[in-house]
């Protein structure tokens, strides 16, 4: 068959190739082994250099191909409760461990594709948090999100999303999503209130929240600003920030009593010999030097300063800005003025997810095959039926390609969306086929134009009916809406035009 392929078919082919690249070219494309998804930061494995994201390729010199290999080889060694030696080889390093217990890490199969599955398929946890008996404003939620993110980061959780969400009724929530393993104390971590303390030595000067902090200067250049970044001798840039905090009378008095006992720093005579340490949930987050002029004074206005660094001026500035913002947030909301309530909490085991995915693929295949049979029976024309089926199949690849590209997490509802899309795709192509076969005295081009009038009409009705779902239900149904919108748009603008061109070529 020597056909000159038209522009639309070429477009489809090029996009298909791009989609396949976006799905299958991963950093671990040819890597064998198991991927480390988390390492307990207090463990010897961590000290030895084992990190999240590394791929374990060998255990004691034995090749690891999959999860089963890994579990069998490694965990079999630790039954006897005696110290054993284990050599783990990763794609980056080799570490040797002596211990009675298996290393405290979690692993998963190396990702062969860039397709990311949602929590309900891949496992993980999700919490939707609001204030008990109070409607939060969007500013309050933004502060809550900031402080929670900081706190959870201090716990060493990395594959983590904390974001503000709102819904159709104007309620604001904080959404926390953690992929993979669920931290055991997630519930406490989420519902516990953040605790902020500023200490000098062992003595608490003030704590976060209204009682000790009268006000924090934010968004006012006269009392909160970042200096122009300066380059230091090591080549990096540093930017100092400074903002003022007004303490309550009680806290100011405490400050005076404690600083009165301090001496002058030996390293820098401008400052006192002990810094003001800022703790969030008992973890030190920052240490501020106290200028000597403040010694023993019940000064309500204190200036808090710090710095950010980076390889360029812009990076340094941004780093300083985010550090300043973090501190301001902690000081204001250090202890939240409201009690948190978990409105929704899902912790999903990854065990069933794999099977789910397998079954969904089966369901998709049988659906595609059986509707293909209907098409074959109806048209009894092998070529056009095959074109129809292949076009629908290419649509699935395009959707998955886009999902991988924008790093969209495919959850169960998204998959329902993909199935819905394939359904409408089939329908539209049937319209094109039938319009092309109409007896009217029109050119094929005009006939296909007529088909598109119907298709575009149907497209817009579906599109607008999906819009409200983007907001309803705190965004938890967004997956369905977005995948379907991507799917039908790909269909109308890419695959349907290509399909009609294929039909034209076949008629010629």
């Amino acid at each position, binding site marked *: 068959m020597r056909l000159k392929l038209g522009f639309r078919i070429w477009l489809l082919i090029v996009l298909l190739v791009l989609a396949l690249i976006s799905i299958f070219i991963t950093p671990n494309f040819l890597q064998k082994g198991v991927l480390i998804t988390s390492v307990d930061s207090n463990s010897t494995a961590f000290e030895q250099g084992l990190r999240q994201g590394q791929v374990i390729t060998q255990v004691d010199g034995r090749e690891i191909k999959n999860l089963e290999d890994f579990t069998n080889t490694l965990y079999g060694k630790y039954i006897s409760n005696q110290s054993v030696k284990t050599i783990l080889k990763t794609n980056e390093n080799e570490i040797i461990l002596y211990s009675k217990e298996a290393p405290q890490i979690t692993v998963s199969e190396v990702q062969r594709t860039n397709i990311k599955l949602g929590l309900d398929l891949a496992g993980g946890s999700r919490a939707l948090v609001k204030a008990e008996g109070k409607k939060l404003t969007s500013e309050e939620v933004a502060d809550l999100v900031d402080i929670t993110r900081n706190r959870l980061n201090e716990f060493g959780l990395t594959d983590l999303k904390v974001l503000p969400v709102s819904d159709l009724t104007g309620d604001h929530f904080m959404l926390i999503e953690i992929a993979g393993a669920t931290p055991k104390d997630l519930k406490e971590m989420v519902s516990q209130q953040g605790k902020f303390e500023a200490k000098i030595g062992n003595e608490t000067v003030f704590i976060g929240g209204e009682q000790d902090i009268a006000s924090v200067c934010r968004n006012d250049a006269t009392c909160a600003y970042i200096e122009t970044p300066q380059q230091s001798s090591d080549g990096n840039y540093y930017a100092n920030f400074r903002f003022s905090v007004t303490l309550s009378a009680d806290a100011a008095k405490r400050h005076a009593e404690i600083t009165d006992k301090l001496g002058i720093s030996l390293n820098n005579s401008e400052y006192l010999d002990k810094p003001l340490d800022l703790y969030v949930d008992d973890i030190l987050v920052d240490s501020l030097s106290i200028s000597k002029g403040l010694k023993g004074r019940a000064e309500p206005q204190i200036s808090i300063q710090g710095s950010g660094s980076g390889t360029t001026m812009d990076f340094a500035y941004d780093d300083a800005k985010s550090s300043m913002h973090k501190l301001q947030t902690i000081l204001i909301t250090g202890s939240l003025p409201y009690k948190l309530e978990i409105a929704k909490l899902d912790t*999903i*085991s990854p065990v069933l997810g794999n099977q789910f995915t397998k079954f*969904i693929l*089966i369901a998709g295949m049988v659906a595609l095959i059986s509707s293909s049979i209907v098409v074959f029976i109806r048209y009894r024309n092998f070529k056009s039926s095959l074109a129809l089926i292949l076009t629908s199949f290419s649509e699935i690849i395009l959707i998955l390609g886009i999902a991988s590209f924008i790093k969209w997490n495919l959850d169960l509802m998204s998959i329902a969306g993909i199935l819905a899309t394939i359904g409408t795709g089939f329908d539209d192509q049937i319209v094109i086929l039938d319009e092309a076969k109409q007896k009217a005295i029109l050119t094929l081009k005009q006939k296909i134009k007529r088909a598109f009038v119907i298709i575009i009409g149907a497209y*817009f009705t579906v599109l607008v009916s999906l819009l*409200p779902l983007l907001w309803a239900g705190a965004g938890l149904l967004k997956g369905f809406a977005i995948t379907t919108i991507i799917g039908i748009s790909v269909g109308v603008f890419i695959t349907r035009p290509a399909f009609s061109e294929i039909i034209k070529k076949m008629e010629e």
Partner: protein
Amino acid sequence: MTRVRIPIRASFKMEEQQNQGEEPQKRKWYNRHYKLLLLLPLAILIFSFIYMVAFYQQHGDFIHKDISLTGGTTITISEKINIEELKQALSGKLDDINVREVYDLITREQKAVIIETKNEGCNESQINQIKNVLEGYLGYQLIDGENSSFECTGSTLGASFYKQLLIAILIAFVFMAAVVFIIFRTFVPSAAVILSAFADILMTLVFVNILGLKMSTAGIVAFLMLIGYSVDTDILLNNRLLKRTEGSINERIYGAFKTGITMTLTSLVAIGVALLVVRSFSAVLTQIFTILVIGLGFDIFNTWITNASIIKWYVEKRK
């Protein structure tokens, strides 16, 4: 024996003769009675309205809600457990329980057990309470995220989700109606599409309620999908009738019917067989597909009887 054969042959012949005259006769019948056909959807619509009013009075709501809308917890335990014994052991200890299993499609082997129970909130103590009851029966620890999954929706959130989804459907319907009006720019054809989409939803809702299906958030989303699915055949039909001139009205209806029924049948077959597969593991997809199958069934009825009759009437009158 020979005696019997003759009358059979005779009747066969008669049928053949009837067949020859069938097309025009059918057409005649359709031309005479298509307006009367509208009584059928009308009767079902009236029944549906009465049913829904009665349903609302009895239950104080439009649907039977499941725990994703009333608030509650779904616990999935990936171990082998006898579900009958479990059900008996839990009844009385947990509110409103519902137990089902997940099994392997091919081997029929049980893979997990799903327990649903009603509870108010999702704070730690409330979840632990359920966990303790289950652990008490099972005799081993449930570690959420490992051998078990917990999905909890607080009751206020469930109620708020329900309200929002109803609003979402309402907005979606209004948006759809607006687009339909923009497409056809005339009242009767647009109204016919909107009416048949509305009838699809209402009839499906009644059917689902008669079946006693407990609806989840996903189920309501399925209704939203139905809006999209049901209007495309209507748009096809009205487009062929209003914007084409070739062929008689009946020929155009029949042409549209051939296309439209292929569309709906492929969707029905695809969703139908997928339903058989997903039933083994996913309540969410099972519910979506069940509602779509019912809805598409009603869509055949409403497109080719309700909408077709109205639009034929309209076109005949305009002539």
